[in-house]
């Protein structure tokens, strides 16, 4: 279980997270939606202790992790896999070496077992025929899948996905969605940050919409689809005007709608 309680984060003088409360149940797949810059990735980074909150608390697998040192975070991190936007693979290692890295680095797992597990996860993400290629030799979708394989090699209980389908063609996106659904059926807790509505509806148990550093709306796929909240409907329909674009952006929108150049 992941608990985020009254989470606050200030970056560049602006409150990116402003008292965010969220609870993610064990085995649940939760999708975080929201406009760019609303703190979705920042929320994910707090869950693995890559960022320290300015206020509030983060609890992962029953352990409070806010403000802990890298050493103290080792236990929680050993149970969490993280898929970065572009895979974050080390470019001087092959796909296979990248995937094996978390196990090889600590030298506790026998080489034969590492090899078996690498083959197993590479097969799972359909990259077993590209194991000896370098990250620069494979496509963006393949890099993401390799990143996912690396996240899975340690058999995590939680997997966090940061924009898993961004920049991918529909087929590559479907491959990723299928993988997420496979993980879901194996009982892994997952949090996905995405702008891809199709993907969100395909994989989510629940969807949360972030706005102004807080959860604006939270519900199952059906509840979100049928939500009466104007902000949710604006996001789903991609409307320019609405509660999510109040303030300065409204001014630009008005000018654009009037056919004037924004000055």
């Amino acid at each position, binding site marked *: 279980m992941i608990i985020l309680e009254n989470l606050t984060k200030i970056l560049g003088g602006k409150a990116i997270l402003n008292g965010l409360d969220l609870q993610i149940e064990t085995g649940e797949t939760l999708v975080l939606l929201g406009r760019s810059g609303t703190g979705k990735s920042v929320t994910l*980074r707090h869950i*693995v202790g*890559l960022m320290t909150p300015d206020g509030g608390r983060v609890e992962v697998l029953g352990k409070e992790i806010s403000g802990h040192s*890298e050493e103290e*975070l*080792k236990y929680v*991190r*050993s149970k*969490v896999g*993280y898929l*970065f*936007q*572009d895979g*974050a*693979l*080390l470019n001087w290692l092959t796909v296979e070496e990248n995937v094996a*890295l*978390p196990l*090889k*680095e*600590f*030298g506790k797992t026998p080489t034969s077992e590492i090899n078996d597990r690498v083959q197993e996860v590479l097969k799972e993400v359909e990259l077993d025929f590209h194991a000896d290629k370098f990250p620069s030799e494979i496509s963006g979708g393949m890099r993401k899948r390799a*990143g996912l394989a*690396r996240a899975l090699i*340690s058999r995590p209980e939680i997997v966090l996905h940061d924009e898993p389908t961004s920049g991918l063609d529909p087929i590559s996106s479907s491959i990723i969605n299928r993988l997420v659904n496979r993980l879901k059926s194996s009982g892994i807790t997952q949090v996905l940050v995405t702008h891809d509505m199709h993907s969100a509806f395909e994989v989510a148990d629940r969807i949360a919409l972030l706005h102004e550093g807080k959860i604006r709306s939270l519900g199952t796929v059906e509840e979100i689809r049928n939500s009466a909240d104007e902000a949710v409907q604006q996001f789903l329909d991609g409307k320019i005007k609405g509660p999510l674009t109040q303030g300065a952006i409204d001014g630009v929108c008005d000018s654009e709608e009037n056919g004037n150049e924004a000055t």
Partner: protein
Amino acid sequence: MTGWIQALGGFLGRSAETTGYGLVLLARTILSLPHLFSRRRLRDCLDLCFTYCLGSFTVTAVVALFTGMILALNGGDSLASLGQENLIGRIVAISMIREMGPFMTALILTASLGSGIAAEIGTMRVSEEIDALRIMSISPIRFLVLPRLVALTLITPVMTIFAGFIGILGASIVAANNFGVTWIAFSNDALENLSTGDVYIGLIKSVVFGITIATVGATQGLLTKGGATGVGEAARRAVVITFLLVIIQGYYLSWVYLS
């Protein structure tokens, strides 16, 4: 006026912060030295030593050869007017071994390897590879900084000795061709006047410079912000800061040695 003072204050604050970060990074890297003796780290370190030597070999040789030749040409010209051209050997040998060799090698390695380390680690920083390492509980200091620091600390003295040798060789060619000083006379004069202390101070300087190049490069890399522009800026800052530190450290080490 207030804006100017604010800008100066901001610059000094950032500089102090970066210096503190660099010193802590160096201390933590030194504390993690025992981790070097794992097979993977040792292999990384040896690979880097080989790559670094290979990458800077040609440029060091060419620069050292011409530096020695320039020293011999200028020194020889002045000495010839006094009828003392047979002293070229000692002047070039002491300059190359004690001062020019370590300094010149440090500048070459800063430009080629220090900037490279900053750019490499900076790129990893902006593409979230450093964060990925942290999530896998792999310390970026042990995994990235330690092998680079050790490799540079080892290869800088090696390249300095090499540069000194090539520089003296270049000088001997000029001494023979332009001033009629035979190779035997040149090398006798050089060896008779070059003390063990000169060699030691040259090597000590090169070790200090090697540590500086790696630490500044890694610090700038790890502090990189933004995208490609941030990486370029990190590489530029690494070169500028290391140049300044090398020349200041060089002066004080010479001062300590001579006094």
